[in-house]
């Protein structure tokens, strides 16, 4: 008599959690843009037995954006998930894994990220500023000014913009533009760059020194700029993975 089929895995079973952990770790390790994502919920799990101690696992995951940029060396466990009122970004991922002798390896993943509904955020927090388009003129002006301001005040390596991560504009009670952006050190000092900034290039990956800046510009009633940049230090980076498409909110992001 053949043995009865094992009971299907529940989404909160330890084995499902282990698979999800491997999947989230893979997704974060294979992204070079945006922020690290944390697991919010296992939506579904299916297991296809392939043989003795060999299973294929299909996972559907709901992820949430953290405040750690993907290039940050901070372990995911220490990253804070963005609050709902901070206009969180959600990620939906389908992941295919193989489990051999209890060890998971990811075979394929497909993710789609999108910000929460503006209406839902405003319903909970009517005064909260919402995510702004990264192409917005006020946002790009702020980032350019902030980086220029930072480079003019530090004698260290001249920093270049890698990407803008998020931006918000608040109109009441004051007109304020807020942006977060990733930077990288170049082969120039800030002083060298004053003569010919175009000649300054990013360091190769094995010597790369990435960093992250937050900038706030109050435009009304009076103008004020605040910039804070932190360099992560030299990091050994993973190989760049070509993505099927690249983009950030508010255009949804898909990666495979």
């Amino acid at each position, binding site marked *: 008599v053949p043995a009865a089929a094992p009971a299907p895995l529940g989404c*909160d079973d330890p084995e499902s959690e282990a698979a999800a952990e491997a999947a989230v770790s893979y997704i974060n390790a294979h992204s070079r843009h945006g922020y690290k994502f944390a697991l919010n919920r296992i939506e579904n799990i299916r297991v296809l037995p392939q043989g003795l101690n060999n299973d294929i696992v299909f996972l559907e995951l709901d992820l949430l954006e953290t405040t750690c940029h993907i290039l940050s060396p901070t372990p995911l466990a220490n990253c804070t998930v963005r609050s709902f009122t901070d206009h*969180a970004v959600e990620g939906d991922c389908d992941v295919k894994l193989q489990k051999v002798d209890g060890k998971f390896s990811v075979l394929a993943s497909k993710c789609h990220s999108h910000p929460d509904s503006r209406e839902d955020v405003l319903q909970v927090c009517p005064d909260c500023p919402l995510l702004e388009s990264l192409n917005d003129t006020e946002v790009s002006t702020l980032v350019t000014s902030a980086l220029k301001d930072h480079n003019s005040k530090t004698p260290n390596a001249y920093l270049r913009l890698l990407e803008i991560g998020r931006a918000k504009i608040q109109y009441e009670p004051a007109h304020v533009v807020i942006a977060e952006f990733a930077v990288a050190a170049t082969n120039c000092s800030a002083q060298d760059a004053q003569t010919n900034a175009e000649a300054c290039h990013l360091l190769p990956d094995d010597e790369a020194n990435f960093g992250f800046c937050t900038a706030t510009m109050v435009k009304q009633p009076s103008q004020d700029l605040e910039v804070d940049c932190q360099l992560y230090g030299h990091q050994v980076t993973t190989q760049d993975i070509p993505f099927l498409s690249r983009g950030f909110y508010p255009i949804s992001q898909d990666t495979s």
Partner: protein
Amino acid sequence: PVAKRAVAEVAQHDKVPRPVGFVPPPPPCPGRIRYFKI
């Protein structure tokens, strides 16, 4: 006169009593929400 008995009432009487403190198992999927519901 013939009095009809409610079906629900019959079902109640036929139910096996659950032990005190019984908690029904959670549905297998989706799993718990760790942070907040989107």
